[in-house]
């Protein structure tokens, strides 16, 4: 891999940029691999990268039905934070946050990790109590977080509507200063480039149509480009988790719901942090390009349509206008829908299954992006060793039978 650097940029600039190579190889699908990862999103590519870089498994393929990063990776609002309530969640999300901090350098790809701070607003005493509990839990878990009262919120983010007569007045917020946003495409491409460089085959425009199981173990995947023999299949397909798991007869407690998002036209910097509000169902940040990136609530019904839907968006913009009254005259530039895979306890599933060699990572709901490197790191460990490590273990599928749920409704109630 030819490294990216300022020097190289200058040199290539003088040479007419003829020396840049493809970021990742356009691999041809082989007929066998040590492991096949289904899904070329952030989590899938991270899994491949860590399998190759940490576990030395390089004879692996990432099979993507469309173009890499075209699913939820390319549709999310890139909020990064780790201020989750439960110990189990804090462990995986904070692991991810620590990886995010150095990921750009590690991948030699600027993922534009901007630790600009994430505010979670509290609008009434009930919320404030929950937020304070979470902030304290975070502190004791070594997760950076703090409580801001109303005046501190107003100072930290002056564009928030702090009027005491607002329908949902802001009475405080949690702040995670190390939280922030990054550039989703860069993460996808950076992982792809680094994984490809380590020998991972990234095969796009290829759809898995079936998975072959013999004597209770995975033996091959059938794809639109032919059969691929492999002893290990790792499904990392977010909204389509149930579809892939269904191929090997594994049932999941996952439901796939539509989630809407939008961006505004680009404007000069006006919002310097990420703001999230459960009560009014708003969350918003401003991209480096200047667009306000806004996520809407999740629809309750199941759907795979990825259709831009309007009712949720109208409601959402009402909420945004409530929190940020000065945004009213700005304009929505694009809206889109994604499919989120939601678990009953609002926590993900990282698991081995009764089918030997079939592993699944999914159920991240609306909060998967922030976990990308941590999820890939822990899942790679599971795929390589067959046993979950400390971070992955609490997220196994059997928790729904034992009742050991990791309830994160409070932290994840708002989409992000």
């Amino acid at each position, binding site marked *: 891999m030819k490294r*990216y*650097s*300022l020097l190289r*940029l200058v040199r290539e600039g*003088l040479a007419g*940029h003829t020396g840049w190579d493809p970021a990742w190889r356009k691999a041809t699908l082989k007929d066998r691999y040590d492991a096949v990862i289904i899904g070329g999103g952030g989590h899938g590519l991270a899994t491949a990268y860590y399998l190759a870089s940490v576990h030395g498994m390089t004879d692996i393929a990432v099979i993507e039905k469309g173009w890499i990063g075209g699913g939820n990776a*390319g549709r999310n609002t890139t909020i990064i934070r780790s201020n989750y309530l439960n*110990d189990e969640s*804090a462990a995986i999300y904070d692991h991810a946050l620590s990886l995010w901090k150095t990921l750009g*350098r590690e991948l030699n*790809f*600027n993922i*534009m*990790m*901007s*630790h600009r701070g994430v505010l979670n607003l509290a609008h*009434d005493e*009930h919320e404030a109590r*929950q937020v304070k*509990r979470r902030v*304290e*839990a975070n*502190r*004791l*878990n*070594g997760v950076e977080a703090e*409580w801001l009262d109303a005046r501190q919120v107003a100072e930290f983010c002056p564009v928030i*509507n702090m009027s005491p007569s607002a*329908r949902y007045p802001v009475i405080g917020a949690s702040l995670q200063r190390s939280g922030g946003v990054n550039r989703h*495409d*860069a993460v996808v491409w950076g992982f792809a480039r680094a994984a490809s460089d380590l020998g991972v085959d990234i095969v796009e425009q290829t759809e898995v149509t079936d998975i072959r199981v013999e004597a209770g173990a995975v033996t091959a995947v059938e794809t639109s480009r032919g059969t691929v023999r492999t002893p290990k299949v790792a499904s990392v397909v977010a909204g389509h988790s149930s579809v892939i798991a269904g191929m090997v007869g594994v049932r999941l407690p996952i439901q796939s719901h539509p989630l809407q998002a939008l961006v505004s*036209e*680009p*404007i*000069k*910097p*006006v919002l310097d942090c990420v703001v999230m509000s459960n009560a009014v169902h708003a969350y918003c940040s401003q991209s480096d*390009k*200047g667009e306000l990136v806004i996520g809407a609530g999740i629809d309750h019904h199941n759907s795979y349509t990825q259709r*831009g*839907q*309007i009712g949720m968006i*109208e409601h959402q913009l*009402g909420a945004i*206008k*409530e929190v940020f009254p*000065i*945004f*009213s*005259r*700005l*304009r*929505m*530039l*694009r*809206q*889109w829908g994604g499919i989120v895979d939601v678990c009953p306890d609002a926590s993900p599933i990282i698991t081995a299954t009764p089918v030997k060699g079939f592993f699944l990572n999914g159920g991240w709901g609306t909060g998967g992006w922030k976990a990308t490197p941590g999820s890939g790191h822990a899942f790679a460990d599971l795929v390589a060793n067959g046993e979950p490590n400390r971070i992955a273990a609490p997220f196994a599928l059997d928790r729904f039978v*034992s*009742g050991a749920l990791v*309830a994160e409704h409070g932290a994840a109630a708002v989409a992000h």
Partner: protein
Amino acid sequence: MTLSDSAPEDRSLAFRTDGSAHEPGDRTALRAASRQPYRRASGGRIDRSKPVHFTFDGKPVSGYAGDTVASALIANGVHFVARGFKYHRPRGILTAGSDDPAGLVQVGSHDALTDPNTRATEQEIYPGLEVFSQNAWPSLAFDVGVLNDVFHRFLPSGFYYKTFMGPPGSWMGFEKIIRAAAGLGRAPKAPDPDRYEHVNHHCEVLVVGGGPAGLSAALAAARTGARVVLCEETAELGGWLLSADPATRIDGLSPAEWIAAAEADLRAFDDVHILTRTCAYGYYAENQVNLWEKLSDHQLPADRDPALPRQRNWRVRAREVVLATGALERPLLFPGNDRPGIVTASAALTFAERYGVLVGHRIAVATNNDAGYDAACRLKAAGADIVSVIDQREAAGIGAAERASAAGISVRHGAAIVSTSGRKRIARITVRALGADGGPTGSPETLACDALAVAGGYSPNVALFSQSRGQLRYDEAIGAFVPGHSVQRERSAGASAGTFDLGACLAEGAKAGLEAALAAGFAGEAGSAPSVEDSALLAGRLDPRVVLPAARAGRTFIDVQNDVTVKDLRLAVQEGYSSVEHAKRYTTTGMGTDQGKTVNINAFAVLADKQALKLPAVGTTTFRQPYKPVTFGVMAGAHTGAHFQPRRTTPMHDWQVANGAIFETSGDWLRAWTYPRPGETPEEAVQRETRAAREAIGMLDASTLGKIDIQGADARTFLNRVYTNAWSKLAPGRCRYGLMLNEDGMVMDDGVTTCIADDHFHMTTTTGGAASVLAWLEDYLQTEWPDLDVRLTTVTEQWAVASLSGPKTPELMAALLDDLDPDPESFPFMAWKPAHIDGVPVRVFRISFTGGVSYEINVAASYSAWLWEKIMAAGAPFGITPYGTEAMHLLRAEAGFIIVGQDTDGTMTPIDLRMDKMVSQAKGDFIGKRSLSRPDTARTDRRQLVGLLTDDPATVLVEGAHVIATAEEPAPPVPMLGHVTSSYFSPTLGRSIALAVVKGGGGRMDETLHVTRPGGGTPIPVTVTEVDFLSLKDAGHA
């Protein structure tokens, strides 16, 4: 400094305007009008009797009513209005409509009333309008950002992915610079005072587009009696007809006459809505099409009707939709194709015919089809000199060259532009002949011009069709996508369907309109096709070569808003970002505020060219809503500010406000939190209110509790199934507390249910749970147990509730009640009785949430404000004190009662709450019971509810603080045993009390644990106790 980009004769243009000088005959106005050097002597839809003065970057500009900012500036010789996003190169007006990519300006200077990124081609002018350039500093003419252009070779697409990778957090430093340079206009600084609204509208036929096809469709549909909506994005109906050759005749009428006649016909129908300045921005599921109507953005603020909203969001449900959205002309790709003064040929015609403005006096025309000839001839007829027609084809279509020759226009066949010059406006083009491979041959020839019209072929405007999820088809002949298979009930007509001939557009529109009405169940017959005399030249045979070799080499722009060049796209392919979506995201092509309307096809062509593929193999991107950017305000509609969400208030609200209450929100409700007296802090008030409820009488407004009337013979069976405890033996007249679990075994609500009769119960729920509990109960009743003879009806607000508590309450009750002896002996705890107060029927419940002597009076809500005041008056001798929710929380905590949602968080079972007695083992199954025996749920070391007493009675723990085992905080991660759920200073006990959930808490009685301090510090030692602090006190333990 001159306003004009190029015309030296305009150097003296400088006058003051106050926005009022628009009266005809006004001398200033006349002088100003005379200074529009590019204004045609006559023609256009503008009103020459109404000069309009506005400012651009503070400099006065004159136009006429009917002008847009773009047409008025061009009339004054100004094309250069903006700077590009990345390289800050000068940007002009490319098209005359909403597809214009880069002519973006900031409108208005008021803190609250400024609109960034407004398209100059769409903003109509009015007197006093203030327009500013944006994304340039210190000024449009001298912008330091242009340094980016100087160093452009080091700033290819995606350069930022390849550098700035310093140590953690270092991106933040670079980011600051990049962010400041990015963005376009500025957000307002103050809240928007304007109003917006939504209108839900149903119709049989929605016609999108007021051009010839749309007008024909609307007429045909309207004649059947169907409800029709016709929406047109611009200020008036007519579409391309407003730009057509005035010599055109339709049924003998000029275009303007025909449009007027069609509009008059349409307005004669009752059920036809004509909406101008209205853009169909989103085509959603089930034929919902949203329209964005701008009512006043074109008006002088003083002229705006305050009764009307600024903008409307029409949510149209149409049985059938006719898309007559026209076509968009593509620019050509050649080096230096981004200079101001370069406009599409169709835009040049629109400026000439619709606005009476010439885009230049010496116009060159570059084309790859016959439409360029049409434009050249008509622009010449309109008064411009035509420098030359440069046709990249070897030969024009039949008649095209002849017509040009007859008009005295020189034509260069088989030639293309290889470079341009002109700093703020195009001044020269260099042309070379094309060789067999399309590469330049022969000697360069430089031609002077002050404008360049480019004709790259028409793309049907298929955005809405694509949003409807229709499938596109690539049409080789026109080099663009056309509507293919429909998914929703819509049809395209006219240019948006790839039909460009006027007669055919009219016929296709009429056919589509009639078919739509028939499909919606209306009857009608086709009218006769109009006779059309039209000499316009259509595109003819289009040159399929979009990317000539010269365009690959030089600085040829694909996207002039985001500053993406052909080289950038080729580099993207080289680096493997070859799929359309990757290339688009890597280079940002087509992702500007113009949604890539004029960009996308050319971009696909570049990708195909680089990969030696045919264009359709590259594919197209998704056309996402909205068609063009729509204000947040109009999307939010009227549900904003005070109207955002309902604030539910009880009948006692006005009294509470008058008596100094501070409120807290509880779901949608506002509840009085405490009633501080003058000079009293809220905390002091809570202590006083609590003491009153313990020592005298306190009164709480408990009206917000959910209430459900349950009737039916199987009501007891039903209660047995939904509550954890047993209900079979509850006698009429008695009340019982119940816990509800979800199927996961976790506590989800609680409340008291009263037996009114064997087949009639009155259930209460928490305030927040009222709606969800009823829905949940109905779900089970309707879908699992439909045979149960049980019916549920919410009565939450039928009954207002005054909860009276304290030792003197029986005395007060005796004074109040007409016909009931309240003596606790004869009217025991957990009983209820009907009674009257001053003849008004009430229900009195002997239930308590304080642990003290309590009575709850339920009264029909309309009497409750009166009753509340009556009780206050009657209670005054007893020291009655109204108390709010905080004192209520404190009182119940003293008694060890839980609050669902505060002491529980969806992960607590009744066992965890140590309310085992509430779980009936005898009665059989109930919702959630099975989950209690799951291995993890049955663990005995789960978090359990306990009381905590601090060693120091004055220390009040912080709610949300965590319980740990050690006297010092170890290094993270600190093992947490649980957390404090409720914490108060109890005036009754004279010390602090707290409830907490603690791992294995039930087995830890009298154990010393520690509670963390927020932010750190030495933890606070506490002793684990039972939760009923009043009993502890009585027993001398606290």
